[in-house]
């Protein structure tokens, strides 16, 4: 029963992620005085791509065709680990938050390799930039996450969320720092505006798009879906760790329904925030990104130090 719950929850997670993208696009369009496509447009795009014939360069190797499956699988695994509707997910015990970061690293590794596979300058450019940004973002993210796990003295996500739920609403300075650090990292890791522009196709500025330029058809669909999943993963992670209230603590139907509504509400709020931020802020130069991520890392360190100095029981 619990296993089935986990599968259903993961499937729901995967199925809802394009909707999040659609809603984000809707918010952005609305804020920028443009006419928005339907919420369901990402689903239509994915469907169209899966039916299209993929065109593959003659220079491509097997890795190019396998990479989308590996990336998508890594994201599904990540989705199965993060508590979505209910907190005590049985799959959460399989992997903790460090493994979650490992799944992201796994997906990124193959995405960057796929970018280099064809042997065009764009692919290499994208891979190089992606690996640079992520190697700066990963320590910042782990710093933020470590602050939480040290407070809860567990690295299991379910355990950490339960701990926050039990403690009730306390304003912890360390959590505030960690929250901001994690938001900054999210922007960088999911390729959102101050770091990368998801809609650009201008060669000098693109990062994520440069790596996947050669993909088409079902391969592109998998990669697009995986990046939607990644955005959703970060969103759920932020909302459920810092604001876990409403998440189902038992597997009754009413609790689950309430939990689903709660998480959707939190994600809607986050989307509006993200759309506002993306509308208000301009994309920054590539070599400003280290300052941005350095700041995120600093926030993570401050969170950690304030936990150690101010909050720890000893």
């Amino acid at each position, binding site marked *: 029963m619990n296993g089935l719950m986990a599968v259903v929850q993961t499937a729901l997670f995967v199925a809802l992620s394009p909707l999040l993208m659609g809603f984000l696009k809707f918010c952005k369009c609305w804020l920028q005085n443009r006419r928005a496509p339907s919420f369901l447009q990402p689903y239509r795009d994915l469907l169209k791509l899966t039916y*299209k*014939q*993929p*065109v*593959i*360069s*003659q*220079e491509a*190797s*097997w*890795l190019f*065709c396998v990479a989308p*499956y*590996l990336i998508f699988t*890594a994201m*599904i695994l990540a989705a199965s680990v993060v508590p979505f509707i209910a907190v005590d997910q049985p*799959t959460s*015990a399989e*992997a*903790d938050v460090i*493994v979650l970061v*490992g799944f992201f*690293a*796994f997906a*990124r*590794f193959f995405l960057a*390799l796929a*970018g*280099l*596979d*064809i*042997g*065009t*300058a764009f692919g*290499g450019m994208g*891979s*190089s930039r992606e*690996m640079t940004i*992520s*190697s*700066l*973002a*990963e*320590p910042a993210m*782990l*710093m933020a996450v*470590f602050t939480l*796990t*040290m407070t809860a003295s567990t*690295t*299991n996500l379910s355990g950490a969320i339960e701990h926050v739920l039990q403690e009730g609403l306390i304003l912890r300075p360390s959590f505030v720092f960690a929250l901001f650090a994690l938001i900054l990292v999210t922007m960088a890791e999911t390729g959102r505006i101050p770091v990368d522009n998801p809609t650009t196709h201008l060669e000098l500025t693109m990062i994520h798009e440069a790596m996947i330029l*050669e993909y088409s058809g*079902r391969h592109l669909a*998998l990669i697009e879906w995986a990046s939607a999943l990644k955005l959703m993963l970060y969103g759920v992670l932020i909302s459920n760790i810092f604001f876990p209230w409403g998440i189902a603590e038992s597997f009754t139907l009413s609790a689950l329904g309430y939990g689903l509504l709660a998480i959707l509400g939190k994600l809607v709020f986050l989307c509006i925030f993200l759309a506002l931020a993306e509308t208000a802020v301009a994309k920054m130069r590539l*070599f400003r990104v*280290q300052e941005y991520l350095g700041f995120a890392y600093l926030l993570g*360190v401050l969170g950690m130090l304030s936990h*150690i*100095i101010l909050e*720890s029981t000893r």
Partner: protein
Amino acid sequence: MLFLAYSAVIFSFASGSIALVHVFKPEVHQQWVFWLLGLSGFAAILAGVGGLITSQTYLDTLNLGLPWLPWHIHFDSLSALFYLIIGIAVFSISFYAPHYTHAMQKDAQGFAVLSLFTGVFIGGMLLVLLADDAFMFMIAWELMSVASYFLVAFDHENSANRRAAFLYLLMAEVGALLIILAFGVMASFASDFTFDALRASHLSTMWMSVAFILALMGFGMKAGLVPIHVWLPEAHPVAPSHISALMSGVMLKVAIYGLIRFCFDLLPEVHWEWGVVLMVIGTLSAVSGILYAMMQQNLKRLLAYSSVENIGIIVMVLGLSMIFLANNYPELAALGLLAALLHAFNHALFKNLLFLGAGIIHHQTHELNIDMLGGLIKRMPKTSFLFLIGCMSISSLPLFNGFVSEWLAFQTALRVDVLDNGVLRSLIPVSAAALALTAALAAACFVNVFGLTFLGVPRSRHAEKAKEINDKSMLAAPAMLAGFCFFFGIFPSSILHLIDNVAKQLIGSNLPAQSVLSFFSIAPLSAQQASYSPPLILVGALMAAGVCFWVLHRKLKTSVRIAPTWDCGFGGLTPRMQYTSSAFTMPLRRIFSPAFLIEETIEKTMRSHTQTNVEQVRYSLHIQDHSWIHLYQPVEHGVNRVAKQVGRIQTGNIRTYLGYSLATLILLLWVVS
């Protein structure tokens, strides 16, 4: 068990001498060298596994060496673990070397030199692990160091190699001197040189710290810790590839063994300050090792620098373990030690795999510059697959072995809140973040390596003409190591159970009672605090990937169209348009520029009349190590200056020398009277 341990040593020495016999009696088959090497490796594996399972200490005395100083032998769990590490490496090399050294075998004398010193080198390493007194330890240590000098200098026609070998010998001897001094400090408070006597010695804290610092410098010099690592990336790459694999994958571990033996076993107590020293030096080595690795174009040099990084991680976690031990948290200290030893084991596996892979690439293309390779995944599919597994393991991606040890290291660092000391409580998380940075940079570095070497379009004729190696046994060695990397990534508990015995022996404590090391999942502290179950993740991944594949391929059945790469309509995509490694790492080089000494020059030749059209551009990039300029060169200049001053007494005039003799004579007479 001792029988197996001895036979591993004897087989390795025999393998060396067989090659020598072959020079004089050509009817003795050269292949015996490799069979004996394989036997030696196999015996070492058996002895290692046996020693770890029984977790007993076997003692013996051999009447070798000086008459009043017999060799004391012991074989305990710690020795057994490192026996296992050496055994796996030697066993894999015995498959690999026959074909790899095929061209060298025609020159019987050269081959004899190579095989003799390989045998002595391996035997020396094994003897270091068996030593139970400082005297024998140093003899074995010197056997290992000097034999490996000859291996580094094997290709001595090249003057750069001679220089590297000399630097290596110099550093090895300085390191050995420091280790002797460290033992000397201990022995001056003890009755004799046996480890038992050293353990029982009563030192003041000051003298203990002196011994610790000397040992750290001595073993650190061999292990390649920053800032005394400079010899390592010079020396390791110039040896033949299977020897580089042994040096980088295994010999550095012997230095780690020495450090662990000295700090956790011989020194009567540990202090947390030492742990901080280890942690800081380890963190520095890890971060700067991987940063320098990324800037290398020579594949073997890059791998050597990445060894500095991994040794740094091991030493950092050892420091953590020491801090916990000194603060009376033996269970957490055991966890740290487990993480460090597991990383040592894992690093031996994947570093050997990568070096052997690099050897195959060199063998097939005669090229090690990653900017000159490319597209090998189509030409050498098997090698590239094995190399990919190595890259994934070293980048610590989940489901592979490198991840497990890194995960355990994080788990250790995250338990910092049990400590009272505020400095430690804020320092340890920062070094954990540095570990995260290292892991991320390692992933970037090995994306660079794999992407440029195997993917894309060939950048040179050598790479274009490359063919897959047709010798099965030469592929079998990396295949075996890759299999281990995957196996221990999925079932880490199998090796963790064994390593737990080592922790029990050294620290006297296992992991906490609530810890789970089952077939399916590992939870080093308790299942509530952290758990990782790679087999279940693998099953989940297979299911998810299977469903995707089934839906997209079986249901939709759209065919794939192969087309030329889109060139934006301009035409003429050439391999030179691809990213090179210096382009790939440019953003990181710019961000971390204070870490390097960068000389970057761009020369432009203008077309004569109009100063606007560029005819030719030359770009050169030269990156140097800080410690080379700021540590090694001043020492070198200083030594030269002193030598020049001392050299003044050499006038070359016979009367002066007669005068010296007279003066000495008078001085001696005065002393005697």
